């Protein structure tokens, strides 16, 4: 064996960077002794799946929270951008928007949009925002932007789907060197490599480094000199998330149903960092919900799955409970 055994263990644990694994995989494929040793290592490592995991009790956070007060936590400047519980219920309606007026500079319809100290706004999940000018922006998780005026948005990272009514004339999006000016249209802008504009309906005037083009429905404009990469079927579909419903059959249980309305299968599983699949918000706290016997499941397109999750504390009668699916940025409300 010319491959160090420690590389073999690292390979079995998936701890190496992606660029190193082909070399090790090739060595294993060409050496039956290495392949046999790898099997032994993997067999041993599987034994460790038998060790128990423990879950934090709700009292732990209470203890931390009470001691934070000793240090006098400053009041958050971001409070006005928090997701109100009432808005969470809107998410369950999946893209059915309320006709409420947006009197602020931008109103969060659902999701969470935060303002950082440097004035940049950032979406921590899929979020929908409407400006006072009536432009609706659907922001993917991780998108950040600056609303420079009622009619101008500077996109720093991520992607935004914009729906601009005819009366919002001349709405402009700037993403790096790319400028998109539009009216009466729906289009997507993604800041990336390359940055591009993708028009769903209406027309968008795009310019980049002296190149200018008016794009129509289904047309894209790439801020790149290279051939454009393929686009998925619909920009709007990129923001679709599984639908979620919740009910409380008893005070200690919440029944959550996830339905995959997307064209591709989705995996319902904790994140690599161990983030639970679901959270429940009630009694003023977010509680991670970790089913003891939970196993990752794959939901085919159109399939649904119901999970009965035990709550750490009973829900008082009349209390609203909001369940969120952590990986999809969707929430549903149930009430006792």
């Amino acid at each position: 064996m010319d491959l160090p055994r420690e590389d073999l263990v690292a390979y079995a644990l998936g701890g190496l960077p992606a660029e190193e694994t082909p070399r090790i995989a090739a060595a294993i494929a060409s050496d039956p002794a290495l392949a046999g040793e790898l099997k032994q290592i993997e067999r041993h490592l599987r034994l460790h799946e038998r060790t128990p995991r423990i879950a934090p009790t709700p009292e732990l956070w209470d203890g931390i929270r009470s001691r934070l007060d000793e240090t006098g936590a400053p009041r958050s400047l971001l409070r006005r951008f928090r997701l109100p519980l009432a808005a969470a219920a809107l998410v369950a309606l999946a893209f059915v928007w309320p006709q409420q007026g947006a009197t602020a500079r931008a109103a969060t319809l659902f999701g969470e949009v935060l303002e950082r100290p440097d004035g940049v706004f950032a979406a921590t999940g899929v979020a929908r925002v409407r400006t006072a000018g009536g432009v609706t922006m659907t922001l993917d998780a991780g998108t950040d932007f600056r609303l420079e005026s009622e009619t101008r948005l500077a996109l720093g990272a991520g992607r935004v789907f914009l729906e601009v009514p005819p009366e919002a004339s001349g709405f402009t999006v700037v993403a790096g060197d790319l400028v998109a000016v539009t009216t009466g249209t729906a289009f997507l802008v993604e800041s990336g490599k390359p940055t591009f504009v993708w028009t769903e309906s209406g027309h968008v005037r795009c310019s980049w480094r002296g190149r200018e083009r008016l794009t129509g429905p289904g047309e894209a404009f790439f801020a790149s000199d290279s051939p454009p990469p393929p686009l998925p079927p619909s920009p709007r579909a990129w923001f679709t998330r599984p639908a979620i419903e919740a009910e409380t059959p008893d005070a200690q249980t919440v029944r959550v149903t996830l339905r995959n309305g997307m064209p591709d299968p989705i995996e319902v599983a904790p994140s690599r960092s161990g983030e639970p699949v679901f959270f429940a918000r009630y009694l003023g706290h977010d509680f991670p919900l970790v089913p003891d016997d939970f196993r990752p499941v794959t939901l085919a397109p159109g399939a649904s799955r119901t999970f009965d999750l035990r709550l750490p504390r009973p829900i008082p009668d009349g209390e609203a409970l909001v369940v969120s699916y952590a990986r999809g940025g969707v929430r549903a409300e149930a009430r006792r």
Partner: protein
Amino acid sequence: MGSGTGRDDRDDQELMARVQAGDVRAFELLYARYAHPLLNFFHQMCFDRAASEDYLQETFLRVWRARASYRPIGKVSTWLFEIAKNFWFNEREKIRRRPFATGAGGDEGQAQLSLVPDQGGAAPADAARAREIGDAVGHAVAELSDKLRAAFVLARYQHLPYAEIGQILGIPVGTVKSRVALAERLLRARLGSYLEE
């Protein structure tokens, strides 16, 4: 478009920015995200649920106090595990190790210790056997030295990349590799009888 992991970290960075601004709600979300892995990290290091809960609380209080010193140059999870590891190594002299899952001393975590993943609807005899194996694995891990155990726990139980483990433990990746490989060899030798099943 970032990978899922990249997006997780971007979300973490957003949360940390809010935490730095003193947003308790963001801190609660950060806690909700990392309480589970960090609690289990401590539990895998000391096998004492009550102590693990204390360490978790103390770690998050340190995080809160140290929030101004956080710089978004690395992953938030690495920073959290680094604080947890430092706390653990500072406290380890005070730890009285308990045998795994014996229930001695009225460990309140006993109920949780009986939860064995992946046994599904196993028959009672199978469940007892699974628990026995889980206990044996826990004993074997407990017998590793602190340094080997920390590296192995982060790699096997927390599924962290070696580069990140190196940052957390303050050692080169090559040292991570050798520690994890040595731990694996020692554990495999101790658990040999269960591997023959």
